[in-house]
C-alpha cells in the first residue's frame, strides 16, 4: 500500500474501526443488481478508493482503463473503460457491480469482490494451496467497497 495519500489512509483506518455494523457478504440484498444503501454505514473515501483501483485485492485496472488514473502504467482491456461510468450507473448500481458484478451482468468475467461462498477449489490467496477451514474474507471489505464506489461516482464526463 502507498502511504503518499496519508489522509485518505487515515480515514480508511478509522472507518474500518467503525465498520462493526457492516452488512455481512452473505446478507447483502441486491435489487436488479444494485445495492441501495451503504455496506459499512460510513461514507466512502474516494482517495483510498483510487488506491484500491490499482493495488491489492482491488486491482481493477488490471481489466479496466481509467483516464483519471493515467499516471499508473498498464491498464487492462478485459472490461470496458470506466471513464464516465457515473453517467451510466447511479451509486446503488455501482455498489452492486463492485460487490458482485454477476448480479448485474450474468456470467461476467469480473470477479465478485464482496462474496465469501460458492467458490470451486478456493485457494489460500495466491499460494496455490487450499484455503483451509478458516473464515473466508471477501476480496474487499465493506468499507473498501464504499471507498471504491466513492471514487467511481467521481468518474463523469462533464
Amino acid at each position: 500500500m502507498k502511504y503518499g495519500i496519508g489522509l485518505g489512509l487515515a480515514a480508511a483506518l478509522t472507518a474500518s474501526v467503525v465498520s462493526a455494523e457492516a452488512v455481512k457478504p452473505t446478507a447483502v440484498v441486491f435489487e436488479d443488481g444494485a445495492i441501495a444503501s451503504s455496506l459499512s454505514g460510513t461514507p466512502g473515501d474516494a482517495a483510498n478508493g483510487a488506491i484500491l483501483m490499482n493495488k491489492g485485492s482491488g486491482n481493477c485496472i488490471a481489466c479496466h482503463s481509467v483516464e483519471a488514473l493515467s499516471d499508473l502504467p498498464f491498464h487492462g482491456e478485459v472490461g470496458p473503460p470506466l471513464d464516465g461510468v457515473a453517467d451510466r450507473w447511479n451509486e446503488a448500481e455501482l455498489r452492486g457491480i463492485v460487490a458482485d458484478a454477476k448480479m448485474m451482468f450474468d456470467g461476467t468475467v469480473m470477479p465478485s469482490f464482496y462474496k465469501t461462498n460458492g467458490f470451486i477449489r478456493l485457494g489460500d490467496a495466491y499460494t496455490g494451496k487450499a484455503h483451509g477451514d478458516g473464515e473466508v474474507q471477501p476480496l474487499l471489505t465493506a468499507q473498501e467497497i464504499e471507498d471504491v464506489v466513492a471514487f467511481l461516482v467521481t468518474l463523469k464526463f462533464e
Partner: protein
Amino acid sequence: MNLKPWIAVAVIGMAGVAIAQDNSTLSIDGETFVTETDAPAHLENVSTIYSGWRFRTPETQALQVDDFDNPAMIFVDQGIDLFNAVDGTEGKSCASCHTDGPEEFAGLHAKMPKVVDGKLVVMEDLINTHRQDVMGAEPWKWSGADMQAMVALIGLQSRGMPMDVAIDGDAAPFWEKGKEIYYTRYGQLELSCSNCHENNYGNMIRADHLSQGQINGFPTYRLKQAKLISRHNRFRGCIRDTRAETFAEGSEEFKALELYVASRANGLDIETPAVRQ
C-alpha cells in the same frame, strides 16, 4: 440482470486494440511455420487459432527465429548430453538402445498426450518409465531441468509438424474431463481458462497481452524465469493466479487438461522450444 449500454464506450475503446495479434510470419532457418489456422472442428467458440508467438513483442519474437539466439537451445544441448549419459543400475543410456539418436522420435510429440493400455500418458511419463523400468535409474522431477531438457530435445524432433492429438476412441473420456476443467471457473476470482484465453485473447490484462494459451511451443523458455517451463508448471501458475487451489504437476487432472489444450492447437505447427516473456 440489466443491460445498460457501455457498448458505445467499448467500441471507442476497441479502436486502440484493432489488432489482437500481429501479422508477423515465423520462419526459423528458412522454414515457415503455421502460426494461424482454422480452428479444429471440435472448437465451438473460436474460428481461428493462433500460436502464442503472434502475441509477443518483436523483441521476444526475434529470439525464436534463429536457433543461435534461442536461449532454450542451451538446454536442448544438455538434453543431448543426458541422452548419451549412462545412468542407473543397468549401466545404460538412452542412446544404448536408441542408437539412431533422438531423431528416431520425429513425429511423436505431435501425437502427445496419448492413451497407452488405457492410461493417458504425456511425454514426461514416457521418459520416466524408461528411466525406471529399463535403466534402473531414479525418476526425474516433473519440472526439473533434466526432465524438461529431455522433453524439449524430443519435442524439437517434431518442430514444424502440425499438432495432431487424437481425441476420440480411448482418448475421449480423458478429453471430456480436460474440457470440463478448461471451462470451470476456479478460485476466489472465479476465472476459467476460457475466460482469459478464449473470451479475451488479444486483450491486455494488466501488463500481459493475452494469447490463446496454446501449448505448441512447450517446453518454452521463459525470459522472466530464465529456464524451460513445463506445460503443467504453466497450468499451475495460471490456476494459482485465480486464488485457487491448483492441481499437482503430473496429476491426472493436468494430464487430461494437457490433452484437451493440445487438441485446441491441432493444426498449428510445433515450435518447441519456443521463447516467451
